């Protein structure tokens, strides 16, 4: 069988002739489109390692059948930075040592980007912890993750403020 879908991944259009209806978005990215940055930790929606943004929302790509995504816009960890310029969440993760082995990191970062967009955490670390709890980090980099999310959120908010003279810096 072959089923054709069309996706925009990291701003690039992909016409995919699916060889199998069972393919998840995660396995499509990793095994067929050469985008292995998104990680598989459980394949069951229990760890968050596979988090990507679909139309701006954070989603476990292991639980999403690729065939159901015709026309979707997908952002993965590979599409987050602007060339050499890291996204503020990525930069904050490095600064706050928000990872050790790095395996959960793509998922954590995509989840953080989604969370900041959702705007539900405010500047409360307790809320950030709660709302980042779909992403397991076995290395236990949580302290850094929480700090990084809060800092990146501040930076992004500053960026969006209309530049009123000097205080934009």
């Amino acid at each position, binding site marked *: 069988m072959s089923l054709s879908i069309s996706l925009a991944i990291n701003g690039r259009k992909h016409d995919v002739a699916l060889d199998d209806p069972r393919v998840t978005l995660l396995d499509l990215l990793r095994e067929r489109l050469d985008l292995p940055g998104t990680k598989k930790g*459980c394949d*069951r929606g229990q760890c968050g390692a596979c988090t990507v943004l679909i139309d701006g929302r954070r989603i476990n790509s292991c639980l999403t059948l690729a065939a159901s995504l015709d026309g979707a816009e997908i952002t993965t960890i590979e599409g987050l930075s602007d060339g050499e310029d890291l996204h503020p969440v*990525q930069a904050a993760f490095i600064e706050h*040592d928000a990872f050790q*082995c*790095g*395996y959960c990191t793509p998922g954590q*970062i995509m989840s953080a980007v989604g969370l900041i967009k959702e705007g539900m955490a405010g500047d409360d670390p307790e809320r950030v912890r709660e709302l980042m709890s779909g992403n397991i980090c076995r290395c236990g*980099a*949580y302290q850094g993750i929480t700090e990084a999310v809060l800092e990146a959120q501040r930076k992004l908010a500053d960026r969006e403020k209309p530049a009123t003279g000097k205080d934009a810096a």
Partner: protein
Amino acid sequence: MSPDTQSTTIPRHVRHGSNAGQPVSRRDGVLKVTGAATYAADNHPEGMLHAVIVPSTIARGRVRSLDVSAAKAHPGIVEVITPENRIPLHFDPNDKMPPFGFRVEVLQDDSVRYVNQPIAVVVAETLEAATEGARLLAPRYEEELPRTDLDNGERYDAEAVGVGAPAVTTAGDIDAGFAAATRVTEAEYYTPPQYHNAMEPHAVVAEWNGDHLTLDMPNQALRMSAASYAQYFGIPVENVLIRSPFLGGGFGSKAILNGPQILGILAARQVGRPVKLVLTRAQMYGPVGHRGRTWQKLRLGTDAEGKLTALHHTSIGATSSFDDFVEPAANTSLMLYASPAIRADHKGLRLDIGTPGPMRAPGEASGSAALEVAIDEAAQACGMDPLAFRLANYAETEPTSGRPYSSKALRECYEQGAASFGWSNRPLEPGTMRDENGFLVGWGMGTAVFPCPQFPAEARATLRADGTALVETGGVDMGQGAWTALAQLAAEALGLDLDQVEFHSGRSDLPDGGVAGGSGHTASAGQALSNAGSDVIAQLSEIAVNDPDSPLFGAGNIGVVAGEGRLYRRDDETRSETYAEILARAGRAELVGSGKSGRDPASADRFAMNSHGAVFAEVKVDPALMQVKVTRLVGAFAAGRVINPKLVRSQYYGGMIWGISFALQEEALADRRTGRIMNADLAEYHVPVNADVPEMEAILVPEVDPHVSPLGIKGVGEIGVTGTVGAIANAVWHATGIRVRKYPIRLEDLLARR
């Protein structure tokens, strides 16, 4: 947060601004935050097939039939490998390969010895097809009643525990010790089976080229593993290349060869194409090791002053029916508290489970989880503050041997941890503190301890014509930050800035970087790298001081120091020259140096060597639901010289979070009737998520140790787990007045005894 501290002040660093001791960010950070860091399963060589393990669903018996034809009929299936057709191996998997090999299940026969044992491998063009093919095999079994617990397992006298540690150790006269006691406390403690659950499942991408084998796999011991695979497949060791640039966590589970990874390699050989085999999360509960459960008993004798007169620690450790790894839990009691008589003994218990193995602080974590509570109970019995009791029993020398410690800043850990936590305000009686919401509040503490081994390792340093360097060792970064800390050490020895040092590691064809385990990798590979760098500098100095055209000519006896890419005359820093200038004049394109690591045997004999720490925990317990939450955690650790405080702090946090997990969350539960693990996934096998973890503090207590190694580094990877577990359990008691002596502490345990 306390200021960053470092324990060394070698003048050259101060003068020339070495990077060692600095909290630099991870060098692989950009790769890891952009998705560009490649883990084993990210590889996809041309023509690659997918292999999927078929796991047994019974714990004991044999496989009667597999529907191979149904699987083979599924589109995309290339091969179904069973004991009937699997190609032979050159090493008997029922034997243990030295030095650390375990017996493995690689389809050698139709027997089933535990749940999730591989019983077939399906190879297919796609992962989807292989997965479906595995399902279609529909195994039928001849099932025997599994042995799953203390009451039906077979007890035996273990010859050794852990990795070759003695099963029984006695120091002093234990009976006399108890006879001299005015008070004896005694209790039993249970620790459950725990699974490493690194976020990255075990994986291998295997590619054969004639008799040459290339493996992409997460691996904590590159050279040792390469040698073992060579033996299994009957090829010369130099034909095996293991690439393991990034591991998605190891915690001990990726140090020892296991059946599934061997099967992935075997499948590639058998089908003549590259193969990727990745375990599912559920399949990680069996063939790749776990922390074996223990049933421990502690008996403590104390005198009228609250001093220990005798300490007896017994542990029964579960292992598999066919191999031995008994958690060396009781040996923790040999390391910590002064007592004229100490005895630690172990027994094994055979169950129908996968063989346990080393898991982050193997022995120390489980042993400390029991010992630290027993100490708390003894303090309570003596009416003493738990910290005062620990200080009264402080071991000035190693308890069993009387040897001095190479260094031991544990007293400082107690002081600084207690001060930061506010321990002195702790009421002695339990159940007396409440917060503003009416929650029960409890404070507890535990002592942390872990050995600090230094393993053999080798490294190479090459100084290049432009004055930059390449340093190489086959080391392993599973998240501890080796790529950064090791490069810092090399840069320091070379007198270069970190960004002038190119660092190659994570491959088995580099100089042997040793094992990333036992919290000894920085001390081991780091020492080798440091020595390699020093070797290069010595060669360079030799050239310069003998060159009449060099400003350093004749400085031979006075000596030179290296820093910022220059050699300086020791007594006159205005006389200096860059490395590049020295090399250019000598017409040398490069200088190559080598270095080794290994502990000085005389020091190892003379001194007891450990890292130490103190952990203080606050818990809050909802009085209606008895739900426990850790609300504060302060750890103070002394572990010799700190190379990168940022990374070290992360190691401590990670270890302490594992302590939370051990105390309150982790437990694999087997169905007694089938032996099947009922929670073999990340939804029901609980590990901490972000919301389970409070704001933590890790205090880096300065400690100078001239004996552990020339660099004075101990180790930080595992110690954080120890101490923390007991601290939390003791805090739960302090909040509620209820002693729960089995882990994890669950709200139902508290509700039942409220």
